[in-house]
């Protein structure tokens, strides 16, 4: 049925100790063999019997990524009725992701949302009653993924990809215009110019791929927002968290939104922290931009850190914030515990049923408790975040690589002195692959560009 091999993390990307990467398709075993080194070094998965488990390591360039158990299930006795390999990873989220990346680099592609189930159904594995659920999953997840990738891909990366697509399309349209109307458009000599362009496009894509490798096109992690009145100590808290000796992933220019964002690692957990503008103005609180903005931020967030100045009484601004965080995952931080307190833990607990911690941002006190608490709620499953972003990133990396490969093919075709009409297919593939990142379909782009940019016809 299907000729390609797909892979994904089959377990939720969160708190479980073990996560499973599932690979399905005709090349599943071959792909697994590329990344898996059995304890017994002579053992190859290609030659093991179906439904057996094997112990070994996932390696990337001789570097061990994780210690794993691998299960091989051969077609048709598997969930999808295709060859399936499942890799049980033990090393936590980051390691699991790394393993998946290796699997993708070895020839599988990221599964579409709901694709395992879709294959299972189309191959006759699961029964009719489940079919509708399958459709729902496909649709819901796709809508979500699309929205996700578009909302988050902004700034220079988006612009860069747009520009690349435009240039590739222009070159392609010129070629095609010349092939379709040789008497009006002479493409003789364009070959060398195109070769040059292709080399530059490749450079640009490689740069984007480096960006992916250094971080991500889109920020992953738990979206954390710090809320509070001016001078409540928000910035001090952020500095205290960041300033400590921890692994800090710096911002990749242009990949974040236009807000101050910092990324902070707590163990395996990745927090994207946004510092919001302080909420000012007591007279027109509701209408003030500060609140609007903060509200927006907190609505999109996975976790809110609400900083309260313990030495000042609560006012209507605080009321506003407390209302805002009521239905959200939030921690209230009573700051400046070194000064005299006019607000007590009990008082604030009465107003908002949230965890309250005493901290001193300036003295860096109480921060460890905060971290412990975040880890705790995460591992208890009380704090979830959107792991689709991670998949979106992988997908985009895959698309960039495909685009690059296609350009390499064009380059080879030119260098082999092949005729111009053979460039088109790969240039189109490159263009299409980039479109997957920006969420644009191809449709009649080429024909429209030919007519818009070149004067054709009798």
């Amino acid at each position, binding site marked *: 049925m299907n000729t390609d091999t797909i892979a994904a993390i089959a377990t939720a990307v969160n708190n479980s100790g073990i996560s499973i990467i599932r690979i399905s398709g005709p090349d599943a075993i071959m792909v697994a063999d590329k990344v898996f080194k059995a304890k017994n070094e002579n053992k190859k998965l290609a030659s093991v019997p179906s439904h057996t488990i094997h112990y070994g390591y996932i390696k990337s360039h001789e570097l061990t990524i994780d210690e794993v158990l691998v299960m091989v299930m051969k077609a048709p006795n598997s969930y999808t009725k295709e060859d399936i390999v499942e890799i049980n990873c033990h090393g936590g989220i980051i390691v699991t992701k790394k393993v998946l990346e290796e699997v993708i680099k070895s020839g599988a592609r990221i599964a579409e949302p709901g694709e395992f189930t879709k294959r299972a159904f*189309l191959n006759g594995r699961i029964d009719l009653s489940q079919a509708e659920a399958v459709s729902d999953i*496909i649709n819901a997840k796709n809508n979500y993924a699309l929205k996700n990738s578009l909302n988050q891909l902004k700034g220079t990366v988006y612009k860069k990809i747009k520009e690349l697509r435009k240039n590739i399309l222009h070159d392609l349209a010129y070629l095609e215009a010349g092939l379709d109307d040789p*008497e009006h458009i002479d493409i003789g000599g364009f070959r060398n110019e195109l070769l040059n362009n292709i080399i530059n496009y490749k450079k640009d894509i490689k740069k984007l791929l480096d960006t992916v490798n250094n971080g991500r096109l889109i920020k992953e992690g738990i979206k954390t927002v710090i809320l509070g009145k001016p001078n409540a100590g928000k910035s001090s808290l952020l500095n205290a968290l960041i300033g400590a000796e921890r692994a800090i992933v710096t911002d990749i220019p242009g990949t974040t939104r236009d807000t101050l964002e910092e990324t902070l690692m707590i163990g395996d957990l990745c927090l994207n922290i946004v510092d919001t503008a302080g909420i000012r103005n007591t007279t027109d609180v509701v209408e003030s931009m500060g609140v609007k903005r903060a509200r927006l931020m907190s609505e999109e967030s996975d976790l809110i850190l609400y900083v309260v100045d313990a030495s000042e009484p609560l006012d209507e601004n605080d009321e506003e914030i407390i209302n805002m965080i009521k239905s959200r995952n939030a921690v209230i931080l009573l700051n400046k515990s070194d000064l005299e307190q006019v607000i007590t833990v009990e008082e604030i607990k009465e107003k908002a049923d949230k965890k309250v911690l005493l901290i001193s941002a300036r003295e860096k006190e109480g921060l460890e408790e905060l971290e412990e608490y975040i880890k705790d709620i995460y591992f208890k499953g009380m704090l979830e975040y959107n792991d689709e972003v991670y998949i979106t990133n992988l997908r985009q990396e895959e698309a960039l690589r495909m685009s690059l490969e296609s350009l390499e093919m064009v380059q080879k075709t030119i260098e082999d*002195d092949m005729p111009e*009409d053979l460039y*088109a*297919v790969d240039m189109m593939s490159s263009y299409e692959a980039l479109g997957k990142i920006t969420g644009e*379909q191809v449709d009649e782009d080429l024909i429209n560009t030919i007519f818009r940019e070149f004067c054709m016809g*009798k």
Partner: protein
Amino acid sequence: MPHIYESYDVVVVGAGHAGCEAALACARLGLNTMIVTISMDSIALMPCNPNIGGTSKGHLVKEIDALGGEMGKNIDKTYIQSKMLNVSKGPAVHSLRAQADKQDYSREMRRILENTENLTLKQAEVTEILIENEKVTGIKTYSEAVYPCRAVILCTGTYLNAKCITGEISNYTGPNGLKAANYLTDSLKKAGIEMYRFKTGTPARIDKRSIDFSKMEEQPGDEETVPFSFTNKEEDIKKEQVPCWLTYTNESTHKIIRDNIHRSPLFSGDIKGTGPRYCPSIEDKVVKFADKDRHQVFIEPEGNYTNEMYIGGMSSSLPEDVQYQMYRSVAGLENAKIVRNAYAIEYDCINPNQLKASLEFKNVEGLFSGGQFNGSSGYEEAAAQGLIAGINAAMKLLERKPLILDRSEAYIGVLIDDLVTKETFEPYRMMTSRAEYRLLLRQDNADIRLTKIGYEIGLISEERNQVLLTKEESIAKEMKRVNEALIGATSYVQDFLNKNGSQSLKTGVTIGELIRRPELNYDLLEPIDLERKPLPKDVRDQVNINIKYEGYIERQLRQVEQFKKLENKRIPDDLDYEQVKSLRIEARQKLMKLRPASVGQASRISGVSPADISVLLVYLEQFRRKHN
């Protein structure tokens, strides 16, 4: 009072390039056929450019011929100049184009029609298609004559409610001042058919005696003539050719146009129809590409027995006085005498999405259509659809399977799939860039792709099919031989390679490997290929192309395999899309309107996403299991 006359199996309405192919196909397949035309003197008329073929259109003509159509043979008989375009590029885009003697072309086609068994010709204006219970029962003419029939093929070209426009002057006529057909549209609308209004245009014709050719570049035909029809060899059709001429517009031409642009019906809003982007008027080009200081103008003879010359590249709907100024500003046309003015023509056509890929209307059984009526432009596009509509009307009446060529089989497949699937906002012109698998769909292998199909249909003779089978066998044998024949690194061979700018051999190689080198080819290697036996040119060409582009051809074949998977997933005619949960609303509406025949076709509808296709696949599997 209507009179009912004899009945026919098929009535073809219109005797242009689509109508002629449709009628010939039906009659040749043994059906009692009548072709009705508004004027017996305008059969296979070429009211615009005097040529057949060109990029991608040449492919269509070759395919028509390979399936047993007439266009290729007719132009081979009546051409006055022949040229292969794009020869400096790859074989996929080599395109044949011939200048026709228009009158000869028309007369020759008429002779063929008149001498075809089972075919009746009739001059009349069809005003009504008779339909009962969503099924065709006959046609009615302006004189109220009724001819009962089982199928109708509409090939009305640009005649429906036609309006010709030159500046402020409009005439309600068809092309060349011929009578328009002013009633049929209403009958079609009554049958629930959605109509569009399109526009096209043609340049002036100028008296040859008033042209100064010394100011122009001569454009001769090719020395080596390639026939359109696979039944002809070069020597069968070789003849003295006439030249075309090339000149240019200039700044002063452009100024005349700009100064008078407000008088153009296109810009004043008098013309409502949408024109083809591929054939823009000169005023369009001057406005849209203001930075170009000149445009090419091709001066082409309309035939051997006329002084009229076609002014290619300068179609226009500007007023007559502006036309005089404009044409006379071009080098060589200073004293031009205009025989016929340039004009734009508006006409009614259909939204082709209402058709199945067989070119039968989805909502009227037995009603087929082809050509400009389907929203395309060009003689070759018309003929291709006419042929398919004709074949499929016949297949229907003979209770046989319709002929549907897919996008991987033929340009005809691409053309029809685009028309019936995609949204059309302008007259559709074939382009090689529309064909995803064009390396496979070459003009040189149209016979290998399609002649067997033509034979199965019944339009290709046993003898012609045998010729093809023999050719295929020789190709296969010769490919096997050159891929195995070893060439040693002898000094003779090394000298030969050096002389041809190719690297010397380090070890022995096969002839096939040498053919793959960009600087070499099959024919060139003859002196060092000692075992070679003489083979016809068409066989040698196939061997060369198949070996030289092998890697690319194989890749395309793999893509075709993928493509076929979705193409072969049929969607039941009566599928209720309301039952397909989880489809997005836009996709559901589009699918309900278009009713695609396969998942492949569904995936090409704009607004249907890959996720919708997944949902559809799951539903179809569910549907299949329920109904098994």
